[in-house]
């Protein structure tokens, strides 16, 4: 499968991004001057988010497309077809017909920190979310919906029956893999939505043969880990980032409060966590208070941590070498380098809790936390992005959903969509 070959090709050594040429990335076959449409992704673009959908549509139709890394904000090149022009017009996407001008563009790409990556296969996207979740609960679902990229919702039963192998890309959002309902159990007791969440999770756990929800979620986390090891692309945001690692590290210890599984958490839980199983983090300490909606000290901002809560700043994207590190370069394509931060139940990742070898894609300069990280596991890769909704920095339960048509240039949402297209990139032939 190309996806797995791709992942293999961009594997890392010692946690450092490895040169594309070293692992076989080459410039694509240079087409002659054929009519193409350039989708600029700099400030000239009129709808950055929908541009990803248009590119996805082209790839899905089997059309040759390219991602011009670092060229005009990470532009795309698609064939010049009436149907694509129509889609661009309907969606308000700026396109620029190019033919002979492409020779100059390619010269510029060759001479600078830029590269052209062929996009070959539209990834099959799965979003892990409860069946009753509204699309507006989750930034990724909103981004996919707005951009017009198709996806399938899956949940615990699908994960446990092995359906993950049918998808190239899996997204997790604010699921609490410690099985403690985001620790809202006591704070929001009596709320209908919480009662529904508890009921649904408990029923699913019973149906799938687990004693309680935390045990179910640990098993789901292990299945997701196996999916990545076998070549899957995992993208997680908000609580899912921190709690999936906690669930994986806690495979032999009870870290869930009494309300979740009927037993108190192990008083020696911190010492018993096995971080070798986790994707990104190590050495975290569990938040033991069931009334505080925080999971551990992995999160730097502790939005619900009372006096520990840190104010929001802005995060800066790293500038990678397009020709040497194409994978992280793809993940940080943007028309903005500095982006205002936004809270989530997990907002950021404390630096000293990151495993060695994790690639930092974005950080808040001078702060003890980072925002956006990436790494490999087995044949697959994972990317974690802290925070809940890039355009709703202080999102609260019950807030109105974000209307992305009012934020068509959102640099935060662009980072999400970079992740969707990144698995579409073609692995180039290795030099012999």
């Amino acid at each position, binding site marked *: 499968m190309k996806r797995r070959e791709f992942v293999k090709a961009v594997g890392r050594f010692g946690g450092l991004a490895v040169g594309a040429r070293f692992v076989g990335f080459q410039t694509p076959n240079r087409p002659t001057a054929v009519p193409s449409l350039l989708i600029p992704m700099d400030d000239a673009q009129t709808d950055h988010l929908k541009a990803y959908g248009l590119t996805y549509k082209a790839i899905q139709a089997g059309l040759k497309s390219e991602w011009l890394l670092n060229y005009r904000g990470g532009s795309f090149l698609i064939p010049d077809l009436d149907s694509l022009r129509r889609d661009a017009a309907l969606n*308000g996407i700026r396109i620029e017909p190019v033919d002979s001008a492409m020779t100059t563009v390619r010269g510029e790409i060759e001479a600078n920190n830029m590269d052209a990556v062929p996009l070959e296969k539209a990834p099959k996207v799965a979003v892990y979310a409860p069946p009753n979740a509204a699309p507006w609960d989750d930034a990724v679902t909103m981004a996919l*919906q707005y951009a017009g990229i198709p996806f399938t919702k899956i949940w615990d039963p699908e994960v446990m029956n092995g359906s993950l192998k049918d998808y190239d890309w899996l997204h997790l959002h604010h699921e609490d893999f410690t099985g403690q309902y985001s620790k809202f159990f006591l704070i929001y007791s009596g709320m209908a939505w919480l009662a529904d969440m508890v009921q649904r999770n408990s029923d699913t756990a019973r149906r799938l043969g687990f004693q309680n929800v935390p045990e179910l979620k640990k098993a789901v986390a292990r299945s997701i880990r196996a999916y990545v090891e076998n070549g899957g692309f995992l993208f997680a945001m908000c609580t899912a980032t921190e709690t999936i690692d906690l669930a994986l590290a806690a495979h032999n210890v009870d870290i869930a409060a009494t309300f979740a599984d009927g037993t108190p958490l192990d008083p020696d839980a911190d010492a018993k966590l096995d971080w070798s199983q986790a994707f990104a983090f190590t050495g975290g300490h569990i938040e033991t208070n069931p*009334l505080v909606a925080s999971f551990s000290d992995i999160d730097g901002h502790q939005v619900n941590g009372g006096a520990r809560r840190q104010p929001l700043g802005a995060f800066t994207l790293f500038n990678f070498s397009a020709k040497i590190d194409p994978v992280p370069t793809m993940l940080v394509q943007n028309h903005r380098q500095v982006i205002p931060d936004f809270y989530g139940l997990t907002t950021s990742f404390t630096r000293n809790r990151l495993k060695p070898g994790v690639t930092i894609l974005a950080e808040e300069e001078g702060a003890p936390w980072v925002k956006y990280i990436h790494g490999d596991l087995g044949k697959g890769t994972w990317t974690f992005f802290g925070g809940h909704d890039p355009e709703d920095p202080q999102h609260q339960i019950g807030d109105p959903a974000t209307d992305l048509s009012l934020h068509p240039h959102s640099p935060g949402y662009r980072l999400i969509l970079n992740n969707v297209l990144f698995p579409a990139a073609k692995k180039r032939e290795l030099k012999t």
Partner: protein
Amino acid sequence: MSRSTSWAAIAALVLLASADPARVARGQAIGPGFELERSGRYADAASVYFTTIRSDPTNIPALLGLERTLFVLSRMSELLPLVQTARARQPDSPALRSLELRVYAALNEPDSLEAITRRWAASAPQSDAPYREWGLALADRRMWDEARRAFLTGRQTLGGDGTLAIELAELEQRTGNWEASATEWGRAVTRSSDVEPNAASQLADAPAPMHDRVARALTAPGTSARARRLGAEVLLTWGRPNEAWAAMEPTLAPTDSETPAALRRFADLAGALTTPEGHRVRGLALARWADMAPRGGSSGARARAEAVRELLDGGDKVAARRVLETHSDSNGVAQAALIQLLIADGQLDLAEERLSAMSTAITADDRAALRLALATARIARGELDRATAALGDDSSVAATAQRGWIALYRGNLKGAMEAFRIAGPYATDRAAATDRTAMMALLQRVQGESSAELGAALLTLARGDSVAAITALRRAAAKLPEQGGRLEVLLLAGQVAAQKGGDQEPTAIALFDEIVRAGGEGAAPPAAELEWARMLVRDGRSAEAIPHLEHLILTYPNSAFVPEARRVLERAKGAIPKS
């Protein structure tokens, strides 16, 4: 650094500033320690502090420096003997006592804390400082239950419901126990009203699902007036003015000297709310405050007038009238509010009479505003001459704009256009300016200088008879050329029909269809297609709306309606949430 440490540091700085010159010199000697600490060289900074302590064992800044640096270096055990020595030399120093507690806490010896606290308390039996520092030391180590016990021990020993209430309130808040935090803040404000702003600001951060519990904890029967006022303030902050007033009102005993200040603060806070309920509640508070103001003073009259205005903005005419009628001393502002009330009630003749009788008492601005309101009310009755008379010789842009509407309703299109042009786009409020601009856009397409039919149709619309207006507008449109205003007038008729809905929807569709089929260069065809699609989406027929929206976007790519059409298209496709 923990809060208690910060307090100790501040105390130390105060001590340092008031010390003798020799001590100041010694203090300066530790300056390099601070610099080293700031640059992250903790071990070197600690060496400087150790040197200072050797010559001055009770030097508090140096001891605090060691507390900070040795903690980072995990060498806190080295500090304990130094602190014990210093404390033995100055047993009455609260800074050293609290430092000793923190060191024991940092060394993870919570059992020793209680013994040390008790020794300190024995030497200062009336002070709550030992218990406060004990609790804070534990809280800094996130030992919540133990910290709570420490504070409660202090309360029990010293007596008094509000003892250490602030500390307990903050502790409960840190643990997420907002209800208990509210109860403690209630006790704290009962003990001292100075705490209220801080308490309100802290409790305002409670998560929404906890709001009811917090409010109950502060306003339940048996709580003090100060606690209830705190509850009222917090409810206001959360945008729940009616409940806030319900909590506030029972505390307003005139014999309570704090009542006027509390009312004023409440009214000021309510001023941040823009909802009708917010205005109404502010009006109620101001009216009560005005009643308490000294008789004969101007502040009471001013507040009363403001109260009337707020009550009117809040839609409570009854309360507004009550305020006005019970105070014959009301000034011009209040009289203006009363006339406004009469206009709203449709008593136009009486309003006119009062306006001319009170013309000297009412400010020029208020007089102009009332004249405009009267003219608008007259237009709504179709009394165009009396509307003109109400405006008098007012030459303001607002009056000019109003004269434009009157000219329009008389069929004088040229005169209306001229008046709207002179009034410009900024006169009166935004909605009125938008209406004028939209009408100018329509009139620009009509080539004739007058049209009695169009004027009459628009007057019918202004008077609120939509169904008759639709027929009249269609009749007026029929007399205009297709590309000379007919489509624009039909569009207006279609918009009215679509807004009316129900049995007028087929009419709206027929009108929109006619306009879209006619096409052409004007703005009417894309506008009609957008309205058509909107109506279909509203009716749950999104699939039928999509082709219309796509047709609009692709046929009129440069139309100003395209961005809005795209939004409606997104919504029809389910790509963005319904707003």
